[in-house]
């Protein structure tokens, strides 16, 4: 009798500790969002979102950084989305469990663990120097694209896995070739799911700083980039500058908070959009 009471007390206490762990994590997240929301909210105005920085970046807005991040993310998507999808199609539809396939999967998992600054170094050599794209939107976007590739492959493959095998077999039984069956019966079903995962990957890429530090992000530009060969301002890099490199750090704190809020809102907004798509999709299938 006594031991069973003890057992119960131990369990109750232990579960409270476990729940405490969860609350701690949630509290940290809330603290982050609250602090950025409260102090960043004050800085947000139409002027802040639509104008370039002025007076040595102590006034004005972040419009060029928003445009720059948008353009880089589009470039990233142009590389990572089609390549990620086709690699996933190979792995899920064509590849057999051979040694090479295992090697490809191992490489993908390892690529997602390569530090972002190392991608930056690789981008400097490959895109800036060897391909002579210079420090530009193109170089930065392609560097981020390589970094995003393992995520888009994995996400696309997850989506392909959800397509029932009978879809493929049905087409093949009617005499369709492999590609015809993929194009008409597999892809229409899988593409929305592939896009969901891809948006998550792009959201992470949009918030990255280290890979663009040396491949194209600029400290300050008074004008918008005119082509993919130009340097650009980017939200994450701008936040880094405003937080650590500015000569009047305390004075520009509100602007840094505002930039952080816009960046977080953008990234979490993209996340949210992906979740909504996924949720709708699941419902539709039921």
């Amino acid at each position, binding site marked *: 009798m006594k031991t069973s009471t003890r057992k119960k007390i131990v369990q109750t206490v232990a579960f409270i500790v476990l729940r405490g762990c969860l609350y*701690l994590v949630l509290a940290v997240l809330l603290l982050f969002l609250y602090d950025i929301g409260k102090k960043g909210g004050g800085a947000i105005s139409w002027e802040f979102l639509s104008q370039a920085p002025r007076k040595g970046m102590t006034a004005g807005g972040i419009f060029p950084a928003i445009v720059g991040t948008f353009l880089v993310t589009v470039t990233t998507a142009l590389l990572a989305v089609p390549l990620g999808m086709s690699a996933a199609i190979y792995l899920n539809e064509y590849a057999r469990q051979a040694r090479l396939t295992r090697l490809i999967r191992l490489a993908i998992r390892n690529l997602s663990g*390569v530090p*972002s600054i190392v991608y930056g170094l690789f981008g400097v050599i490959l895109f800036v120097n060897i391909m002579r794209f210079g420090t530009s939107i193109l170089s930065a976007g392609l560097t981020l694209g390589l970094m995003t590739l393992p995520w888009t492959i994995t996400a696309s493959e997850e989506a392909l896995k959800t397509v029932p095998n009978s879809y493929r077999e049905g087409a093949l039984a009617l005499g369709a070739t492999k590609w015809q069956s993929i194009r008409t019966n597999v892809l229409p079903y899988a593409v929305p799911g592939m896009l969901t995962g891809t948006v998550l990957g792009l959201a992470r890429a949009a918030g990255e700083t280290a890979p663009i530090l040396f491949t194209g992000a600029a400290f300050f530009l008074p004008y918008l980039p005119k082509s993919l060969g130009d340097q650009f301002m980017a939200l994450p890099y701008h936040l880094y500058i405003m937080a650590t490199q500015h000569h009047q750090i305390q004075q520009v704190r509100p602007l840094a908070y505002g930039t952080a809020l816009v960046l977080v809102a953008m990234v979490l907004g993209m996340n949210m959009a992906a979740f909504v798509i996924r949720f709708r999709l699941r419902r539709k299938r039921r």
Partner: protein
Amino acid sequence: MHKIRLARFKESAIRAFFFSSGVLAVLILIGIFATLLYTAIPAFKEIPLSEFLLKKTWDPTSPEKAQYGILSMIVSTLMVTVGALALAVPIGIGVAAYLSDVAHWRVREIIKPIVEMLAGIPSVVVGFLGIVLFGPAIAKIFRIGNGLNALNGSVLLAIMSLPTIISISEDSLNAVPPAYGEASLALGASRWQTLIRVRIPAALSGIIAACMLGMGRAIGETMTVLMATGNARSFPHGFLDSVRTMTADVAIELGEVPYYTTHYYALFAIGLVLFIMTFVVNIGADLILHKYQEREL
């Protein structure tokens, strides 16, 4: 006949296209390694490898004698990583165990995306919060001039590696065959005893792999440590010392270094060391996870 042959050709061309994009992942990985190695080699013509890895002084711009020892940075990187794991591993496993064994499935469905949200916060924002939130708090608690030190970096990296540790640990707890837990409960063990003596040991390989992946993330993280650890070059003696990790050093110096100098090559050598460290950790985690998956099948 002609038509069939054309269709066959088209099919194999399409297959070849998809195959090449699949193989690309391998080529990129090899390409990164080869590029780093190739660019780092000229550095080792000037700097003996032993000096590079074992000397504490990094002073590449010294007018008298440039010194290229990265031991202080390696120790700094390991210090913030170990600190981060000391915080993130118990908390992460606790959350994973709560979600898989205690919480109602509805709670779990709500909490999981919220935890993933934490992973979505850009590292530069986490670093910024290290400066404005954690820095002043640490300075106040320990009564020191400023809170930009190894402790700050450890706390931030712990927060950043938590989502990885939580989600993979939870997956491996969920993958434990239900019969294990049921048998334990049937023998009269409480749910807590079942969790701690049966289910966690059964999921241990997955949990260890989760922690290793979290460790890989912490070693390679750049912006947070760059912003929050103070970046002093000296050899660290404690968690309240300002430290400069390998990643932070590359981020600070690559922008200013003249191309094709020993210093430039040495920065790529640091990148190579980073690449090898994370590669080893990730392969290790991968082997453990794989072994574990095969046993399950």
